């Protein structure tokens, strides 16, 4: 060997990349130290590459070699698409996360002076370092992306929570306002109410006295007196006055009674008033509530009860009854002619549910979002105040429960109240 040849051989052996030369049958004609060290095969020359690397994908590799022979130019492999050509242990055994050596490979034709391909030169570069870094980056990117998604979800949740907060703040504000208004109206209403009662009696008494006058008047013979009285009666339309006075007083009584009810509702809405936490039998409560509102219900609906087995529930019974009443009255109102109101109860985990379904008109989708708003009503003036459901909502919320509604316009509506059997420690008995 000449000096140059020796030098060349040395360089090929020492270079820190894998160098293999194969003939067309994939027999090894040359390979350098890098290959020898990494494969552990000392006597590779003249062996088939497939014998030295039995798990080398045969048809793929053969095609690569054929490609170089056929089109007489280079071929490549990229670690991203194919991590390695020859399975070698990683070059970072201690600090790395990969267990094989990642490789880029170049296949080049070796030609003789006539231009014929005489062999394929395979050059293997160790890219484990780069692969480690790239894969780590990819993992990092994936993790960041994942975290970003999580954050997005959190933001949505936060927005929901904020909306709920706004809703309950709104409720609280309106509650305070209502409490103030209720308080202010309560006193004058009180005396107007009792005065109206007295006035009714007085009017009746007055009319009774006049009746006696009338009877005695028949006996009066003096024409001048009779004329004067009859003239006055006519002038003031006495007969009409008599009738109207009674009607007016009755209507006013009705009116002030309605005002009283509204004030009571307002008080209920703001939880002014009764406050006894107790273990209550909800079925009892429901039954007595049904009795109270029976007049509203009996001509409209058949009431079907499907009571489940539920324990006593820690609650302020009078408030819960108010909720029941609102739901039943609403259900009755929703039924135009004749229908069914179904009341069912049950226990799920540590929550009881009370479900009131009706076969009434149902609620349109755009209204469904608004029914819990105070003063939202679709009922004619004087019939609904729009407080029933918002009062119910805040009562149930105070009980750490929740209200659900499903409705199909034209088919009916179902309200479900969920209440915890026992209240969380601190809050129960606080009021």
């Amino acid at each position, binding site marked *: 060997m000449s000096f140059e040849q020796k030098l060349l051989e040395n360089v090929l052996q020492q270079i820190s990349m894998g160098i293999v030369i194969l003939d067309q049958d994939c027999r090894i004609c040359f390979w350098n130290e890098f290959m020898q060290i990494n494969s552990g095969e000392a006597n590779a020359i003249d062996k088939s590459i497939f014998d030295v690397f039995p798990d080398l994908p045969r*048809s793929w590799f053969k*095609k690569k070699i054929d*490609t170089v022979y056929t089109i*007489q130019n*280079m071929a*490549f492999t990229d670690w991203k698409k194919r991590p390695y050509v020859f399975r070698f242990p990683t070059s970072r055994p201690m600090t790395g996360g990969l267990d094989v050596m990642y490789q880029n490979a170049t296949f080049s034709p070796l030609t003789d002076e006539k231009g014929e391909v005489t062999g394929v030169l395979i050059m293997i570069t160790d890219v484990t370092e780069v692969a480690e870094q790239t894969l780590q980056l990819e993992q990092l990117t994936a993790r960041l992306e994942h975290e970003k998604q999580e954050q997005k979800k959190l933001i949505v949740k936060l927005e929901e929570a904020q909306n709920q907060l706004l809703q309950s703040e709104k409720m609280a504000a309106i509650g305070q306002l209502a409490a103030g208004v209720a308080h202010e109206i309560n006193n004058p209403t009180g005396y107007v109410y009792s005065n109206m009662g007295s006035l009714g009696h007085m009017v009746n008494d007055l009319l009774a006295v006049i009746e006696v006058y009338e009877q005695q008047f028949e006996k009066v013979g003096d024409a001048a007196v009779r004329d004067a009285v009859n003239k006055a009666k006519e002038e003031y339309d006495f007969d009409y006055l008599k009738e109207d006075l009674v009607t007016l007083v009755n209507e006013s009584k009705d009116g002030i009674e309605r005002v009283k009810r509204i004030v009571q509702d307002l008080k209920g809405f703001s939880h002014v008033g009764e406050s006894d936490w107790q273990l209550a039998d909800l079925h009892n409560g429901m039954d007595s509530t049904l009795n109270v509102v029976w007049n509203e219900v009996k001509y409209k609906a058949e009431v079907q009860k499907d009571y489940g087995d539920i324990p006593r529930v820690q609650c302020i019974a009078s408030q819960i009854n108010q909720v029941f009443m609102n739901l039943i009255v609403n259900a009755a109102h929703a039924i135009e002619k004749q229908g069914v109101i179904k009341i069912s109860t049950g226990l799920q985990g540590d929550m009881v549910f009370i479900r009131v379904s009706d076969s009434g008109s149902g609620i349109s989708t755009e209204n469904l979002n608004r029914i819990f708003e105070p003063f939202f009503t679709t009922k004619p003036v004087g019939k609904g105040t729009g407080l029933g459901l918002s009062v119910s909502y805040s009562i149930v919320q105070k009980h750490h429960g929740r209200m659900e509604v499903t409705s199909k316009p034209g088919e009916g509506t179902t309200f479900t109240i969920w209440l915890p059997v026992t209240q969380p420690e601190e809050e129960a008995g606080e009021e």
Partner: protein
Amino acid sequence: MFTRDQLDALQEIFNIAMGQGANRLARLIETFVVLSAPKLYSLKSQADPELSKRLGDTPIIATRQSFVGPLRGEVVIFFGMNGANELAELMGYSQDGGDAQRIKEELILDVTNILVGACITGLSQQLNFTKSSFSTPGLLVEGKTVAEALENQRLPQDSEALLVEIQFKIEAHAFFCELLICIANESIATVVTAVDKLLKGV
């Protein structure tokens, strides 16, 4: 840039070179390969509409590979997304395990390498040039339309490079691709000289 005679001669050279390329590919995959007559453009803005017209709105995979030597430039290949699987079988990839997407991409890159090698080697031989060297092929875009792919090309619309458009089809298979050979300006003079030499020799 080119005279009529030079253009005619170049067309002839490309016809032969690409024929050789197709022939090599056919031998490799043992299937008949059909190719269109190469079309020469001297401006990118001439080639683009043709390509768009031909490939329409179908999603494509585009790859690129550079060649250096007496001829310098890049080849961009547009593959139809279909037909890659059949080619995978022809190329001996199918029994090789691994995830389908990666296999498909490796295959497309290998086909790129083969086509570019065949075409550029053929051309170099026709022009009596020494051998060219090639870079590793790479993916350019995936799943977009030609119009979108061309939009992102760095090559300015009116750059004066020699562009050659060829279409390869594999007989009886859905596979097809369009090659755009872009020869850089600085190599044009070399090409002109070589063509002139050939013309004189005739």
